[in-house]
């Protein structure tokens, strides 16, 4: 197991290298630059800026310099938030995004598995139909519609919760963004669980468990659900990576100071270092969660144990 983790972490290095390389050059080949403003800067200022940020040097040099700094954890200064380094920006925003994302993930996972299981156990009944219609709605209605509507109803009309902001990070501030962020994922988990649960309940070994008079709860939870969770666990990695690295839309709607907006702002402003920083951040999250999921998978299914 230890060797498996080491091996996987070692294989993350080339992955990160490729991600950094591709995004570095893609960014540079995109038209425009960080200092191309609507009102062009005087050429002299522009020249000074370019020199100050080493943008006047050949691309290869810049690339090698970036790599060298990145290895030591220095992702450079931001071009638009001029007083901050990328590390500072992410360091400030990430805890909010991670916290919000974790709640959203738990909400989606627990809710989705529960709903999916209920639907599977009542396959083709009214409850199944109802639950799955709601789930489909969850996927199809975009969060920039769900968010404002919920704000309108629960914050403005009913005034149960604040309309936005982080406040002290308590439940009343979090509940709307968590639901908005988690709802589409909850729907995906519900669909996945329902499908694999229906299949699991038809398995021969479930018939065996029933034939041996095991209580219904044991049959469903111990025997059917453990197998049915395998595809759900597989989906956990991309889902966790997406939720925990913040959502530009949800964070903007609820004015939460996370890292989600940096993706958009960085890309629009050609803030090279900010875009690179967020890309590396997402890549690391994806790699880590894939590893976590593989370990979880091994714990759930003895046939794929890593030794």
């Amino acid at each position, binding site marked *: 197991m230890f060797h498996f983790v080491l091996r996987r972490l070692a294989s993350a290095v080339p992955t990160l290298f490729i991600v950094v390389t591709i995004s570095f050059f893609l960014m540079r080949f995109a038209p425009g630059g960080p200092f191309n403003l609507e009102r062009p800067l005087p050429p002299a200022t522009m020249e000074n800026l370019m020199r100050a940020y080493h943008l006047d040097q050949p691309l290869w040099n810049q690339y090698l310099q970036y790599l060298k700094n990145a290895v030591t954890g220095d992702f450079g200064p931001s071009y638009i938030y001029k007083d901050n380094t990328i590390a500072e920006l992410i360091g400030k925003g990430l805890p909010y995004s991670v916290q919000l994302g974790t709640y959203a993930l738990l909400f989606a996972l627990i809710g989705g598995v529960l709903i999916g299981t209920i639907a599977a156990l009542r*396959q083709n009944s009214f409850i199944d139909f109802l639950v799955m219609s709601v789930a489909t709605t969850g996927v199809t209605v975009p969060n920039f519609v769900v968010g404002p509507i919920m704000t309108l109803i629960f914050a403005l009309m009913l005034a149960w919760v604040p309309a936005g902001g982080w406040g002290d990070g308590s439940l009343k501030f979090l509940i709307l963004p968590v639901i908005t962020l988690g709802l589409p994922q909850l729907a995906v988990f519900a669909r996945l669980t329902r499908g694999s649960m229906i299949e699991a309940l038809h398995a021969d*070994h479930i*018939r*065996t468990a029933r034939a*041996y*008079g*095991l209580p219904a709860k044991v049959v469903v939870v111990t*025997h059917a659900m453990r*197998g049915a969770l395998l595809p759900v666990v597989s989906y956990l990695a991309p889902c966790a990576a997406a939720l925990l690295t913040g959502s530009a839309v949800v964070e903007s709607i609820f004015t939460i100071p996370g890292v989600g907006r940096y993706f958009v702002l960085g890309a629009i402003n050609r803030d090279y270092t900010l875009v690179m920083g967020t890309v590396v951040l997402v890549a690391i999250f994806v790699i880590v969660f894939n590893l976590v999921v593989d370990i979880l998978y091994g714990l759930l299914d003895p*046939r794929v144990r890593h030794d």
Partner: protein
Amino acid sequence: MTDTKENILSVRGLKVDFTTPDGDVNAVKGIDLDVKAGETLAVVGESGSGKSQTMMGIMGLLARNGRVTGSAKYRGKELVGLPLKRLNEVRGSKITMIFQEPMTSLDPLYTVGRQIAEPLVHHKGMTFKQAKVRVLELLKLVGIPDPERRINSYPHEMSGGQRQRVMIAMALANEPDLLIADEPTTALDVTIQAQILDLLRSLQKRFGMAIVLITHDLGIVKHFADRVVVMRRGDVVERGSIKDIFENPQEDYTKMLLAAEPSGTKEPPADNAPIILEGRNVAVDFAIGGGFFTSAKTMFRAVDGVSVRLKKGQTIGIVGESGSGKSTLGRALLRLLPSSGQYHFGSKNISNFDRSAMRPLRRELQLVFQDPYGSLSPRQTVGEIITEGLFIHEPQLSRAERDKRAIAALKEVGLDPAARNRYPHEFSGGQRQRIAIARAVILKPKVVILDEPTSALDRSVQGQVIDLLRDLQDKHDLSYIFISHDLAVIKAMSDYVIVMKNGKIVEEGDTEDIFETPTQNYTKTLMAAAFDLEI
């Protein structure tokens, strides 16, 4: 059996119905059954006879769309319609079951020890820790070697026979009154089959439980059961003692079942018959393990230096248990997988032929598979399936000519030519195998390799397919390589037999010699296991 023993299970007017989109299906149409304490009752029938569904109905294990009505009393207690909680007091405690597929009947995610313990935990109120002693005892009882270690094994770490032993251990855990065995040995090799049946018999002697044996295999019934119930299409056709049924069957259907064991022999071809397909020192290696970047950890030799010579008009039977390499050998002879050795087809040396060089020869070298469900594309009509080969090998044919050939081929295999506009799922297993054969013969091949062509079929259907294969052989002077684990079929079909084990030939010779005077111990064991059970 004495009639004085009490009935532990009495079934009266039991019906099982399934609601399907095409209307209700009456799987069991009101049958009566009695099982006496300590006896073995065999419920015999072909697929679709309702023999399994009867027991599933009694045990409350029907599929969601199934309904059971009538009465099934266990020691006076009505089981039909019993609330789940009450039914669960009986299932797994007083009445237990073992199933056909030991591969899938155990949960792959839990150790066998835990699974055997579960009935103890839920019925006897033990903790898993307390149950462990009893589980070890049970594993020993069913002959699992090294139980202290095996108790922590997962099902995928065990062989099919061992898994079935684990199922039996689970069934015995609470010392039941009645054990229902649903085709317990069908998925197992013959030697393993004999061991499992021996085990069941000795355990029955020791613990005195009654056994209901559900099977299609009359060979097992004769040696194992006290009484027989013959079922067909949801009804009981005939019932009686073993002696009555086997020596003096009353009903035509029973007689047909008894006669359905494959019979006849095949004359060897003339001595001067030319050799049509030959493989010398055939060897096939498979890589085990290894990933995309890492090289394979070990090589597994599936076929190890085997030589086969097939004469024109000959049928060579290749016998062996699962993992013996018999199917791999068949594919290697057709050059369908990478293998070493010298190969000749007629006068051509095809040892170095690659895929494209082999392609023109393919029409003369055909293959028919075991699984008539999996080997026909569900999205093509039967006509498209059987004429597909003509597109490649006789592209000059017009549509009308192809259609004519399809009609002729279907007639030849005994199917209605109208079948060509229908899809495979509309046909029964036997009919599908006929379609697969039609697909091979439409190309007018010289050699057909038959890989377990009858193993998935009921005995009565099996007989028909064998007759068909014989007719086709006579008519077109075909040469067959007949691969099977079923010795009775091999005996009836082939004039030369090769016995394989672990990729090597154990023994080979004329069919009569191999069956009458086998010289190798392995062959003798195989024969004993198969024919001790034969009628």
